[in-house]
């Protein structure tokens, strides 16, 4: 009898006895992510489920990520199949108004410049000894676009998913801190004070409806490997612009996006097992992600300076910083920065154009990258 009691009691202590230092550290990391999401409002929709998933997976003996564990089931169903990031993309397309970039199509170029960090960081990761596909996954943090980073990493470097996703979402929320010093360092006060003319409405409904179709067909033909990314975001946008399927648009932008965000977040958190996550490699990935976003911003501003010169001073180079995909946060940062130097400067709509271009640019960059990899026979 006494032995049965002791055995039964040992079952209650087993969790504590199997707790390792790595689990404790990761539970603290999970709590920090929850704190950032809840108290600091840093991407709460993602950091809260990610943080909680991280805590869950680091409690020993629960085996939530073992075969048939509930987190493993969600992960296999949505991440390994790439379904979650793609469903999120339908929602993003349904939520995003691309009119500002259509008003001024030249801003597409700023959206391209804002992706330079992807390719430069990929080179840095290779130089640091990462394999080709690991370097691609790390570089894609520079897309500054969570679903794109998750899609590419889950497909080609799933062992890096936790680190890449946390880096992508954390830095996206830190855009207001990361970007301004770079913007100030690369521009003169005269450039920052440039007042841009207000955009007038110049895009017809037909153009807005044809836009997602053109991007899908053209982008798909150039970079077929990225068609799932392009196709889903553009499907969402077509539904929004055509106005014929309001129920589907609302469901994509609300119910579907919300449910998938929850499942996506918790499955990413589930990849943050202490034994796998707590490695020097994770710190290097976080550092490279930071560099990627700095390089994106710098390249965007530098192209903005080129446009400033070619337009004879009509374009404020600050809007180049919004060429990254952190939508619409980056545009707000540009607006705020511009107003610091000229109270009457309303750069928001111009920056929104560059920011919407960055959203498309990040998807195109990932699509192009995957197609180049396919062409080289690496995937």
């Amino acid at each position, binding site marked *: 009898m006494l032995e049965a009691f002791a055995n039964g009691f040992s079952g209650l202590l087993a969790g504590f006895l199997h707790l390792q230092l790595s689990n404790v550290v990761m539970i603290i990391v999970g709590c920090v992510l929850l704190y950032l999401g809840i108290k600091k409002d840093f991407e709460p929709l993602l950091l809260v489920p990610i943080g909680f998933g991280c805590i869950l997976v680091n409690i020993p003996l629960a085996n939530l990520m073992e075969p048939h564990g509930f987190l493993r089931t969600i992960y296999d169903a949505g991440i390994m199949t790439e379904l979650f990031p793609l469903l999120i993309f339908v929602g993003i397309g349904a939520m995003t108004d691309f009119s500002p970039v259509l008003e001024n199509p030249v801003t597409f170029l700023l959206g391209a410049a804002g992706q330079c960090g992807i390719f*430069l960081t990929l080179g840095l990761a290779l130089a640091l000894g990462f394999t080709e596909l690991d370097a691609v996954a790390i570089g894609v943090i520079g897309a500054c676009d969570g679903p794109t980073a998750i899609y590419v990493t889950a497909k080609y470097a799933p062992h890096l998913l936790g680190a890449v996703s946390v880096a992508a979402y954390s830095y996206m929320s830190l855009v207001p801190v990361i970007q301004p010093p770079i913007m100030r360092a690369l521009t003169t006060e005269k450039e920052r004070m440039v007042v841009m003319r207000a955009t007038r409405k*110049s895009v017809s409904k037909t*153009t807005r409806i044809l836009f997602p179709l053109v991007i899908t067909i053209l982008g798909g033909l150039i970079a077929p490997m990225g068609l799932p990314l392009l196709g889903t975001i553009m499907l969402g946008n077509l539904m929004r612009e055509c106005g014929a399927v309001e129920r589907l648009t609302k469901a994509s932008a609300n119910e579907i996006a919300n449910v998938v965000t929850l499942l996506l977040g918790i499955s990413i958190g589930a990849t943050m097992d202490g034994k796998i996550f707590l490695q020097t490699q994770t710190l290097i990935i976080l550092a490279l992600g930071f560099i990627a976003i700095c390089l994106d911003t710098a390249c965007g501003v530098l192209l903005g300076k080129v446009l400033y010169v070619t337009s004879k001073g009509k374009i404020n180079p600050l809007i180049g910083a919004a060429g990254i995909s952190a939508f619409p946060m980056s545009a707000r940062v540009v607006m705020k920065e511009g107003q610091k130097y000229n109270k009457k400067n309303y750069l928001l709509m111009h920056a929104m154009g560059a920011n919407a271009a960055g959203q498309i640019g990040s998807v195109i960059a990932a699509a192009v990258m995957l197609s180049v990899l396919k062409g080289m026979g690496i995937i």
Partner: protein
Amino acid sequence: MDKLTFGVTMLVVGMGGTLLTLGIISAVIALMKKIFPYKKEEEEKA
């Protein structure tokens, strides 16, 4: 393929391809705006 060749190819073809694709999209959108110009009536309807 060595890592240097891979990295340089990705930088040149990848970044170049991205810039080219967005450049083409930009030109196509500018063309579409000419073919389907915005009409004042659209604003009134909206």
